[in-house]
């Protein structure tokens, strides 16, 4: 099952690359640099998915106390941090030629960075608590607080300053992108989702092994 997911994800990523470089047109203003968007946007969407899972699994754990929920929260949290990191790095690489700077304290950049830090703290907490049951409880509480904090962070940073272009894909109005760009983005999005599922099932299996060793 996991192996099939892996192959599917690999195929999807290849297709995504082909779409991003072959089918989607070169951006008239930004040139080829713009193609990094096909990694950047799926990354952050995957990270959001992962953190939503952390919230659900944290609630699930506190209500049922089943280790399975904790395993899910832990694994999703780790992968979410990786994808948030990927978003920040790919955004930086895009920002240097486009905005002329690696980093700027724009609202969306800042709130993504804070998201990254909150969940790095979440993972550190998991590493520092010796008793696994206690660690799971604490992590669940932080996972819930971290998630409900996201909208507060969002608005605070938004009012603080803003420069990033408004989101194109998740905005209520119809996205003003051409069909081939949209298709390339969709293929990459699906590929990243498959990759996420593959990594998640791998990480869950690893967690199970870790628990066996500890027991």
């Amino acid at each position, binding site marked *: 099952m996991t192996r099939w997911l892996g192959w599917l994800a690999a195929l999807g990523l290849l297709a995504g690359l082909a779409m991003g470089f072959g089918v989607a047109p070169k951006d008239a203003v930004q040139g080829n640099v713009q193609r990094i968007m096909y990694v950047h946007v799926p990354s952050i969407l995957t990270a959001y998915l992962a953190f939503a899972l952390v919230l659900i699994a944290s609630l699930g754990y*506190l209500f049922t106390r089943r280790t399975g929920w904790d395993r899910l929260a832990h694994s999703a949290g780790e992968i979410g941090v990786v994808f948030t990191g990927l978003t920040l790095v790919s955004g930086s690489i895009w920002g240097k030629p486009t905005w002329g700077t690696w980093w700027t304290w724009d609202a969306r950049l800042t709130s993504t960075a*804070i998201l990254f*830090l*909150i969940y*790095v*703290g979440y993972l*550190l*907490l998991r590493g*520092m*608590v*010796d008793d696994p049951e*206690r660690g799971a*409880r*604490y992590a*669940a*509480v*932080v996972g*819930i*607080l*971290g998630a*409900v*904090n996201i909208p*507060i*962070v969002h*608005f*605070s*940073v938004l*009012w*603080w300053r803003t420069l990033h272009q408004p989101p194109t894909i998740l905005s209520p109005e119809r996205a003003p992108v051409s069909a081939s760009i949209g298709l390339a983005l969709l293929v990459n999005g699906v590929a990243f989702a498959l990759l996420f599922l593959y990594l998640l099932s791998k990480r869950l299996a690893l967690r199970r092994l870790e628990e066996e060793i500890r027991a």
Partner: protein
Amino acid sequence: MMFARRAWIVLWKDLLTERRSKESLNALFFFAVLLLFLFEFALGPDRERLTAALPGLLWLGFILAGLLGLGRTFLVERENDCWEGLLLTPGDKGAIYLGKLAVNFLLMAAVAIVLLGLFGIFYNVDLWASLAPLSIVIFLGTVGLASVGTLFGAMTSQVRARELLFPLLLLPVQVPVLLGTVKATEAVLQGLALAEVGHWLKLLAAADLVYLVVGILTFEFVLEA
């Protein structure tokens, strides 16, 4: 009714301990003075520069003091099996959270007053004019800081690397509170009306409310041995 009474008993117990030991308050006051000197040395004696940086410094100092002070209310519970005593208390554990939160709030409010006074004297800022709006901002900020700090303080008091983990968890979560309070303080010190920063005050109030609800609901899971 019992809920409020339980919270009050926790508060009273901790205030009594603090009155007899005077541990936290003395240390935090001294820390506040030290911070003031450090800021002065770091920025130089230029008054204009210090005044411009004042809102940021004030809240930075405040949060640093919080990192030292907020975890302490639960550290004292680890001795003599007090933790088990708290656990055995019947009824909703949210009351214990509220009591501890009230202790931390009072502690941080005392630090804030001292810090403000010292800033006023050493940096020669006239704070009297904006005292009323400033106290509203400080109230909202202190509730935000103390509510998350109390929850995480209870958590980290049971962890080996306590001093390390507490700031790592608290600081990122507190970013909105820091942004809101600094912006509002800036405006208030410039003599603007509170209505000008109404959106920040609303955000702070919303954040306080969210943190409080999460704290009350999840505290029982933190308190468990």
